[in-house]
């Protein structure tokens, strides 16, 4: 095994994404588009969390916008965003050489293995909302966490077989590192020599400002509470009707609505726990029905 040489730096944020897509496409992944719903993390895309269940093989990669209302900072914090991108890869079953495949993907976006210190530091991943956990690492590049790397062991409270390998790249952070940029809004979104050069700030700064105002000042909590109940009712009904995919969609909606309520900081700790438990029941319920359908389908 010889060490591959890193490629030159990507020209822009989007070039970095395109390279990751091309690289993982070459590894046999279906390159999916972002899920068309608000989610807090790329893992929650059904292409990861639901496909990790059941016996069928699966490989996919995609960019997923992630919304975390409480992390929004009115565009004033150079490192923190209420809306950002994750690049998500799932390979099921995990190939024997997944670690090498992952390292090669870093070389592909211009990180030179002879210059940068890449480390795998224990970090076991857990998402109680979907009853999922796995073992793995956070991957450090010169002390900065650039990815989360996980071997799923359970999803929806059920053991997975086969095991999937999951990679999550925090795209903005990774790009800031590759481009040596201190402020996320300064990232070159497209190439600086483009006909219309755009920075990350040109694309998203105003969005961060207005969404922050919504998250913290203008969201109607009474309305959100009603929405939450409606999503819960709909999700439960769909689960009873054994339609786990839309049932899961409504669990995701409920989860996002809860995140919006939570960002306002108006609910007590006890209420908060109860919301989290309700979302978990919806997501787990949908996952369980989906898993049994998958097993029956193949068996």
């Amino acid at each position: 095994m010889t060490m591959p040489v890193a490629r030159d730096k990507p020209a822009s944020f989007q070039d970095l994404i395109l390279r990751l897509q091309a690289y993982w496409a070459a590894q046999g992944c279906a390159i999916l588009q972002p899920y068309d719903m608000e989610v807090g993390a790329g893992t929650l895309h059904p292409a990861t969390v639901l496909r990790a269940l059941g016996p069928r093989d699966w490989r996919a990669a995609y960019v997923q916008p992630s919304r975390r209302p409480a992390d929004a900072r009115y565009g004033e914090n150079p490192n923190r965003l209420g809306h950002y991108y994750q690049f998500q890869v799932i390979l099921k079953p995990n190939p024997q050489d997944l670690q090498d495949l992952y390292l090669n993907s870093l070389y592909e976006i211009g990180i030179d293995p002879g210059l940068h210190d890449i480390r795998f530091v224990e970090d076991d991943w857990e998402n109680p909302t979907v009853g999922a956990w796995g073992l793995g690492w956070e991957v450090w590049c010169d002390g900065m966490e650039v990815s989360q790397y996980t071997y799923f062991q359970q999803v929806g409270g059920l053991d997975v077989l086969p095991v999937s390998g999951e990679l999550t790249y925090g795209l903005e952070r990774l790009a800031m590192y590759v481009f040596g940029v201190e402020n996320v809004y300064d990232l070159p979104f497209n190439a600086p020599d483009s006909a219309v050069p755009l920075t990350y700030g040109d694309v998203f700064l105003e969005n961060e400002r207005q969404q922050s105002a919504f998250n913290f000042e203008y969201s109607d909590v009474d309305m959100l509470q009603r929405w939450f109940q409606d999503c819960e009712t709909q999700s439960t009904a769909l689960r009873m009707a054994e339609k786990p995919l839309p049932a899961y969609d409504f669990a995701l909606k409920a989860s996002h609505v809860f995140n919006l309520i939570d960002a306002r900081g108006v609910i007590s700790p006890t209420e908060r726990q109860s919301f989290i438990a309700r979302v978990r029941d919806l997501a787990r319920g949908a996952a369980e029905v989906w898993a049994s359908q998958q097993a029956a389908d193949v068996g």
Partner: protein
Amino acid sequence: MPDLLLELLSEEIPARMQARAEADLLRAVIDGLGAEGLAGGATLSQSGPRRLCVMVEGLPARSDDKVEERKGPKVGAPDQAIQGFLRGAGLTDISQADIRFDSKKGDVYVATRTLPGRETQAILAELVPDIVRKFHWPKSMRTGHGTLRWVRPLQRVLCLFDGAVVPFNIEGIASGDQTEGHRVHGRGPYRVRSADDYVAQLSGPGHVMLNRADRLGFIQDRAQAICAASGLELVEDQGLLEEVAGLAEWPQLILGNMDPAFLDLPDEVVRLSMRVHQKYFATRDPSTGQLAPHFIVVANLAAKDGGAQIAAGNARVLSARLEDARFFWENDRRGGLEAMVPKLTRIDFKQGLGTVADKVARTVALAQVLAPVTGADLQQVERAARLCKADLVSEMVYEFPELQGVMGRYYALASGEPAAIAEAIADHYRPQGPSDTVPSAPVAMTVALADKLDTLVGFWAIGETPTGSKDPFALRRAALGVVRIILENGLRLGLRDICDQHARTLGQSGDHDDLLAFFADRLKPHLRDKGQRHDLLDAVFALGEDDLVLIVKRVDALTTFVDSEDGANLLAGFKRAANILKAEEKRGWTAGADVDAALIAQGPAAEQALYDAVCHAESILSLAVVDEAFETAMAALSGLRGAVDAFFDAVIVNDEDPAVRANRLALLDRMRAAMHTVADFDQIAG
């Protein structure tokens, strides 16, 4: 004699698990070989981020033959028994069995079977896969379609015996003679011929520093050397050293620079950011003892540019972390500690015990009760208790939970609180363990004691007490803290009353026998460390005493006493008396009858002497116990010894005259009761 070399190569093993796994693997191999009658010479084990390795020198090439004997029925036993024996022993005819004389049964049949020894190679081919499958990791996982549980995916197994591959297969991984080196500097693979060859190839072209102790020593020495060359002093951190030695196969130390502007943050914050988030060693300026704006990072790469980019990258990450920390530090100080207090209603303390705000209110009340005992200023105690948990809602403590108390101290000083209050906020979590220091300033010790007692009484009130090894709320540590704060500061208080009274503020009328026994259990190891006996504590504790200082005084005096000749003899006399009385109690006799002095005067001189000695001892004991003059009390007991011995030598308790007999029992009862004012001698082993 041939050698064994085993290496299990996997994806990165969590640093905290490596040393233990190395030891477990070595033991499993040695035990497994031992069970087959195979013992080798020198053994060696290694572990690192990606590998566990065991080497055993000088193993025999095969195990010895084993002779197995099986005893059968008596000669002449029924045919059924004989046939059963033949089947079980795998014989076809009874003539194949020997006959031997057995002292109990007479002549019996014995079947002897020789189990031929096996090739060590074949034994290992079964043993190693078995060890791998049964290996215990604190957390393990499956991979792909497999069923094997390993810490992370297993990638290669190298197993050589006598220079040849020991053939086996673990979930699709065939054992072989190849290993891999450092991913960037010398991945290989390398074909290995022997243990020496393995070490030579990995430590040479493989760029792997195999031995954990070597890595530890190397990192330590290099860190010192880099500091010395830059006029710095290393902030030693053994835990961090052990962790980073598990994160690099080829450790390379690089000095990084941080923006000195961040040094206006509290030292604890800077050091924690370095240690927890980034795993850097901090450095000090030796002339001032203050943190220096430099850190040492242990990389796993000898970079082409000498580490310049690694240093720059790490510095940037640290800056971002410290930037966050400064944001928290400034926000927190802007609001001040007082403004945080109302937000404590938002944090649950424990279901059934309300929020942290509720806990603080109870702690304030209890601290005020305790203040007269500790001699602390009442108003300062009230204020310190009110503020002691406020930093839990600060942004800094949300980020670094380890800094609870520490940040409270900084924020208190920033808001102009007196030093005694600020110190009490920081120290009220103490002692955190048996070796942590105990707060000795009056305000701090009061709040520390109130906080712990409130927690204990609260958890007892809701019935969540530790069971077995389960103690998720560290109640044992809290109770040991109470014991140490009381004893080391000589605080005189009745724990039972305090607990009962505090339980009433929780709306409970608690019976705290169990909690007091819990304190006594914490007291035991404390006394044992001072060389004192458990049973003596039991003997004092059984009296219902709940003033820990007094209990320890009594145990001290009692220890000296029972170790003396008088004490040992009196204890024997006490046991004799107590046994007689217990036997009588079973027959319906009851204690407490008056002694008839006139009747005693008619009896033997030894009886009179004991009576006089008991009366004398009683008069001294009653005063001495109240005055806590336990040495005087013990001297009074010593005075009983001669009389007790003489009494048992000369007097028969079981007299024919029932009146005399009853009077003698009453006398022994008086003696027992007198001794009981000092300790429950029944509890003392003797």
